[in-house]
């Protein structure tokens, strides 16, 4: 690896007068890549919360079915 | 065994419609698929007709996997779904001619067939001018055209009047007595004492 190509940090930020363009392209690219990574992570989290919701919904349905069937049974018993 | 399903599962829009379904149909039989609305009857029929793929499971035609004998199966199948398959801007005769070409059937007297189905005088007007019941009759005319052994019918009796229902029943009996097999859904009682009718009930699932 060669030495630092700039004499000072100020020169480094200035990029020989092209600082605006260089930092603009690198900054935006980094933001875009980070966004990709972040949305990917969010996607998994979102799915997990959806799945938990779904599981609890299924549990509710099962509970309801059991309840109604037991009510049905007791009704059958009372008529007999 | 003419046609059988093994361990079929189907999922539509994240909902499991049915799982590990088994059944088999032989020549001369009628299977009636029953179940509440949304239980997956139509989806099952579409899978059986090869229009949709099951998420799991296998179909067998004459004891061979369907994937290997798909062409043979398709030529021996008559599927009528809840869509009529009738192009509304064409006349009944023109629709019949198109089907004949598609199913590679020989030309015959379509006028007589349509008259038999109670469509005399309506043969050459566009189907969009027909009533719902007449439209359905044109669609069901395929059952009189086809030489296929296996019929898969989705609610064939909807919109039909009493005489048409009787005629269709008669056709079912004829078909089964000549070695045909029918899989259908209907909310009506089938009431066919001559034919062994099997029931398959799909439970509505969450």
């Amino acid at each position, binding site marked *: 690896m060669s030495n630092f190509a700039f004499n000072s940090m100020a020169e480094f930020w200035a990029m020989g007068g092209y600082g605006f363009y260089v930092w603009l392209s690198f900054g935006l690219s980094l933001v875009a890549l980070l966004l990709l990574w972040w949305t990917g992570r969010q996607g998994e989290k979102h799915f997990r919360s959806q799945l938990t919701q779904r599981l609890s919904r299924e549990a509710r349905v099962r509970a309801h079915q059991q309840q109604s069937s037991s009510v049905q049974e007791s009704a059958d018993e009372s008529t007999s | 065994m003419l046609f059988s399903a093994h361990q079929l599962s189907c999922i539509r829009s994240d909902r499991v419609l049915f799982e590990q379904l088994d059944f088999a149909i032989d020549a001369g039989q009628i299977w009636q698929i029953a179940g509440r609305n949304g239980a997956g009857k139509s989806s099952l029929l579409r899978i059986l007709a090869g229009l949709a793929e099951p998420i799991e499971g296998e179909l067998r035609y004459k004891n061979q996997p369907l994937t290997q004998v*798909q062409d043979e199966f*398709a030529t021996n199948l008559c*599927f009528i779904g809840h869509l009529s398959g009738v192009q509304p801007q064409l006349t009944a005769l023109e629709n019949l001619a198109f089907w004949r*070409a598609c199913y590679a059937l020989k030309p015959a007297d379509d006028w007589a067939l349509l008259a038999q189905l109670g469509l005399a005088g309506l043969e050459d007007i566009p189907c969009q001018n027909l009533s719902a019941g007449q439209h359905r009759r044109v669609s069901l005319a395929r059952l009189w055209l086809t030489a296929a052994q296996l019929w898969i019918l989705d609610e064939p009796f909807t919109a039909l009047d009493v005489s048409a229902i009787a005629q269709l029943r008669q056709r079912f009996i004829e078909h089964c007595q000549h070695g045909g097999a029918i899989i259908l859904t209907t909310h009506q009682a089938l009431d066919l004492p001559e034919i062994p009718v099997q029931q398959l009930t799909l439970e509505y699932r969450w």
Partner: protein
Amino acid sequence: MGSVYLQTLRRDFRLMTRQKSDWLNPLMFFLIVLTLFPLGIGAKPNLLREIAPGIIWIAALLSVLLGSERLFRQDYKDGVLEQLVAARAPLFPYVLAKISASWCASGLPLLLMSPLMALLLGLDSKAYWAMVGTLIIGTPLLSLLSALGAALTLSAEKGGILLALVILPLYIPLLIFASAAVEQAGFGLGYSAQLAVLGAMLCVALAGVPFAVQHALKLNVG
């Protein structure tokens, strides 16, 4: 197979005579777009002549695209396609017949209208014949690609705009070479290379697109 092809072709021509707006509306759209350009940029004969190839081809792309949305829609809604997919064998000749009929309804009229376009935009005879050549090779390619788009977006909820989004990028090579050929002819240069490339693209599309359309129809019905 041949009988399904002929029967479908006859059926489509019959439908065309009964539903004239289906193929007349895109043609009217084409003419109106051609008229809009001179109105938008001013009636400068030289400028118009210069950009005429591009204008003609963009208008042609859009009008064919507009007409193709209805290509399979009716048959899908009525369940005719379902029947064909279930029966398997007749689907391929049906697709070929549909594409042929759609070319007769959209590409052929464009070809017949080409003298009118030349007149409106002031093309000279060399450029005109180049345009006829590109239209002969290019419009079947247009019909093929639009059929593919129509088949792919068949059961989608937002069919029309999606079709444009999906298919327009695939039109770009055609647009480039077709308008380049007309432009070259306008300068008095040879344009057989461009026509050859267009011809090659047409051959590739002819070999592949009908199968892709068939596959797309199957998966949309399923």
